[in-house]
């Protein structure tokens, strides 16, 4: 059974559900008696359980089930919310996130079944027992021990949905059998044998459940034995005989099953509505397998199925963006306008052109220009996602950090709706986590210090995002102790990589910027959160690779603010187009400091390196024509494009300037990856290709 098409949906929705569980649990911690929040949590957990079950992720389902049990008891007022309980629930969330991670990477949930968490959840439930007597209707919960699905014995457990179908079948007078098939140890194509059994059973009734799951059986993920729950009108002898006729089957046990102990109606009212969709996926398994009673032991059909499943496993889910339908409508409208222009242009025949009805033509071209600009905007908007997708995991993180540090921290977020390109959003998470942890760990004082400093006991970290022109600004601000330039100075002297004279000549801001140097940490003590000195330089380099900048604004004793500035998108940049010899190159505008006309005679040689002196600064000069293996020019005046990378300035000699242009960055492809001085290529208006110089490697 091919589940791959549902897998993507499952992953997306599970992520959303886990995120909202996270948020709501945090809210529950604030307001333990808010029944609305609790209801939402319960509903989300229930959905999650149902989806996991549908997809055959048994371990995930059983963990969610235990969580749901606890939640249901809280909802019924039999348990009260404690912070220990929330800790365990948060751990369960982490475990569920791990499952989803595993599913994303491998399409399977993995082997971990988190029995200790399930045990802890059961302890919580058991804790209730000491306070109140068990009520009859709770039998269902106590009976349900989340056994590993492979552990098949007489008292094996079935998902509620299966039991529901089973009870229904029994009620309607059908037989329900548990069929255990033991394949011979010499059987090479177990999946093929299982397939034949499935197709033989197909016409007789319905396989309502399989252990291991149908998917696993198809993938040969079982030893010698598998178990089916089968509803049929046939007798049990007939089934036994039929399966024994299949080659390489060593043994078959067919047991009749009665009504399940766990009455579905007693578990939860919502359950009744659920079973149909949950049970549905197992049905097509039988329907899909065409009944081939006389099927010779050919391997073809199952092999094909196996291949499909194999592909799913490798297929690590691709990136996707959820797009608002309005945006797609805009896109659609623009495309239809494009078609109109095309028709217009077609309508202008050659005669029209020669009969100087030029205006018609240029009107259309102008129209076309307007449409392409809007089309470009619209497509860029489709790629944009709100930073909320990154921000929403921070409250939980700050909660954990504040508990670990014993600090009282309030995280205030704003501007979550600010949008950034999907690729930037994916990358910005780690640097922000780093900055937030820094703020919590080093920025904010301990509660005791805060009280003695007459500051509010609760420290505040503000996380702000807003759009500023063509970039998005994200600020992380704390009201802690701020950064002391003197402390950094002392540290720098201690490390000895900068001399005292240089330090003395530096401004406070320059000294604070030293924090971004590799292996520079001023933390007095190293904690497991931060302070190992592998921090801010990593943050900075990550942000720079994203084409952004980071600054620090700090007031000693009042707090510090990290300002991260990011481009709206990575795919399109402003660039300066230049001619070098006969070729055209693009230099990203963000790198360029200034452009100077220099007379040939002004270039001096210092240690065989050409330099120019510009406003009392010595700047090395690189002749791009020689680096790019082009003919050297012999101009009297040279155009030098001065580029800045960090503190370093370098001048590049070009032949002439073409102008500033917005360019779309395109990769050179996998075959030309080791050419470091080229960052990519772009297509010019005339269809020709120009290369983009990678300034970072050239400097």
């Amino acid at each position: 059974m091919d589940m791959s098409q549902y897998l993507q949906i499952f992953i997306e929705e599970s992520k959303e559900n886990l995120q909202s569980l996270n948020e709501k649990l945090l809210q529950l911690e604030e307001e333990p008696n808010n029944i609305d929040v609790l209801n939402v949590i319960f509903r989300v957990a229930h959905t999650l359980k149902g989806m996991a079950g549908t997809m055959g992720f048994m371990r995930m389902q059983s963990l969610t089930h235990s969580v749901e049990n606890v939640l249901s008891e809280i909802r019924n007022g039999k348990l009260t919310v404690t912070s220990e309980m929330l800790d365990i629930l948060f751990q369960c969330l982490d475990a569920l996130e791990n499952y989803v991670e595993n599913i994303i990477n491998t399409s399977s949930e993995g082997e971990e079944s988190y029995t200790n968490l399930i045990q802890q959840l059961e302890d919580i439930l058991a804790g209730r027992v000491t306070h109140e007597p068990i009520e009859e209707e709770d039998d269902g919960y106590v009976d349900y021990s989340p056994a590993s699905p492979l552990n098949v014995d007489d008292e094996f457990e079935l998902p509620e949905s299966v039991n529901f179908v089973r009870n229904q079948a029994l009620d309607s007078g059908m037989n329900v059998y548990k069929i255990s098939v033991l394949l011979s140890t010499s059987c090479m194509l177990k999946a093929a044998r299982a397939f034949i059994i499935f197709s033989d059973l197909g016409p007789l009734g319905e396989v309502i459940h399989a252990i291991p799951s149908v998917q696993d059986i198809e993938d040969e993920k079982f030893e010698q034995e598998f178990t089916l729950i089968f509803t049929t009108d046939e007798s049990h002898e007939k089934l036994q005989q039929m399966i024994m006729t299949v080659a390489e089957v060593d043994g078959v046990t067919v047991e009749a099953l009665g009504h399940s102990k766990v009455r579905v109606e007693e578990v939860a009212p919502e359950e009744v509505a659920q079973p149909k969709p949950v049970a549905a996926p197992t049905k097509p398994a039988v329907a899909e397998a065409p009944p081939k009673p006389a099927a010779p032991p050919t391997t073809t059909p199952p092999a094909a199925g196996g291949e499909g499943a194999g592909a799913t496993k490798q297929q690590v889910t691709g990136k996707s963006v959820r797009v608002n339908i309005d945006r797609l409508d805009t896109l659609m409208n623009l495309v239809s306008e494009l078609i109109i222009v095309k028709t217009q242009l077609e309508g202008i025949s050659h005669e029209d052109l020669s009969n100087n009805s030029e205006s018609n033509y240029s009107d259309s071209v102008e129209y076309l220009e307007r449409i392409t600009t809007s089309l470009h905007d619209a497509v860029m908007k489709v790629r944009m996602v709100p930073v909320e997708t990154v921000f929403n995991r921070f409250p939980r993180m700050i909660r954990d950090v504040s508990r670990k540090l014993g600090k009282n921290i309030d995280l205030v977020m704003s501007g979550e709706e600010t949008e950034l390109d999907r690729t930037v959003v994916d990358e910005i998470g780690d640097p922000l986590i780093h900055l937030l942890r820094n703020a919590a760990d080093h920025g904010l004082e301990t509660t005791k210090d805060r009280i003695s400093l007459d500051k509010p006991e609760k420290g505040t970290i503000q996380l702000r995002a807003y759009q500023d022109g063509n970039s998005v600004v994200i600020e992380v601000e704390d009201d802690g102790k701020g950064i002391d330039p003197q402390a950094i100075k002392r540290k720098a002297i201690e490390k000895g990589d900068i001399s005292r004279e240089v330090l003395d000549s530096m401004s406070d801001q320059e000294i604070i910027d030293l924090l971004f140097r590799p292996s520079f940490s001023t933390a007095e003590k190293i904690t497991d959160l931060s302070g190992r000195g592998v921090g801010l330089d990593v943050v900075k380099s990550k942000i720079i690779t994203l084409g952004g900048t980071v600054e620090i604004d700090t007031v000693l004793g009042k707090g510090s603010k990290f300002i991260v500035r990011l481009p709206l998108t990575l795919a399109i940049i402003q660039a300066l187009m230049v001619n070098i010899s006969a070729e055209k190159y693009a230099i990203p505008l963000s790198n360029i400091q200034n452009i100077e006309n220099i007379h040939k005679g002004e270039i001096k040689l210092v240690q065989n390196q050409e330099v120019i002196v510009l406003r009392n600064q010595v700047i090395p000069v690189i002749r791009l024509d020689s680096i790019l293996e082009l003919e050297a020019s012999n101009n009297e005046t040279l155009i030098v494009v001065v580029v800045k990378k960090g503190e370093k300035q370098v001048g590049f000699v070009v032949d002439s300037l073409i102008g500033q242009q917005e360019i779309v960055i395109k990769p050179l492809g996998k075959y030309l990856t080791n050419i470091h001085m080229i960052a990519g290529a772009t297509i010019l208006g005339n269809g020709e290709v120009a290369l983009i110089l990678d300034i970072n490697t050239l400097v």
Partner: protein
Amino acid sequence: MEITMKKQYVIFEMDTQNFGIDIQSVQIIERMKSIMRVPKSPVAIRGVMNLRGEIIPVIDIRTLFKMPPLGATEFTRIMIIRMEDSMVGFIVDKVKEVLDIEPGQIEGISTMQGKIDSSYIIGVGKVTNGEEIVTLLNHDRLVEVAFGIQE
């Protein structure tokens, strides 16, 4: 490469010799276009071109085969070859025709004389009643050689 059944080959000419590439891997044949040189790229790489918004590298087959250079003529074509997940252009002197060649017509080669590295040659096909011969190429290997990728 396995040769089991009749295949169609695109036949092209290089310095009066005939070569063939499996038609399945030929995406499109373009007239000569402007190609941007890429500095520091392997010697047989002429540069990159724009193929409908995609940047693809172009291999100069003459340079690769160590044949004397020849400027673009009215017959010069760029054969766009589909690789696993990308495309590569081959500059050839002239694209002649598409031929059906049966496995029986193909002779394997043990050692090929001349300067051509033989690792990308599948075999030699005899066509038009054995009067003409076509050297059949393994385009994957050809690209690897051009970019200096080891086997």
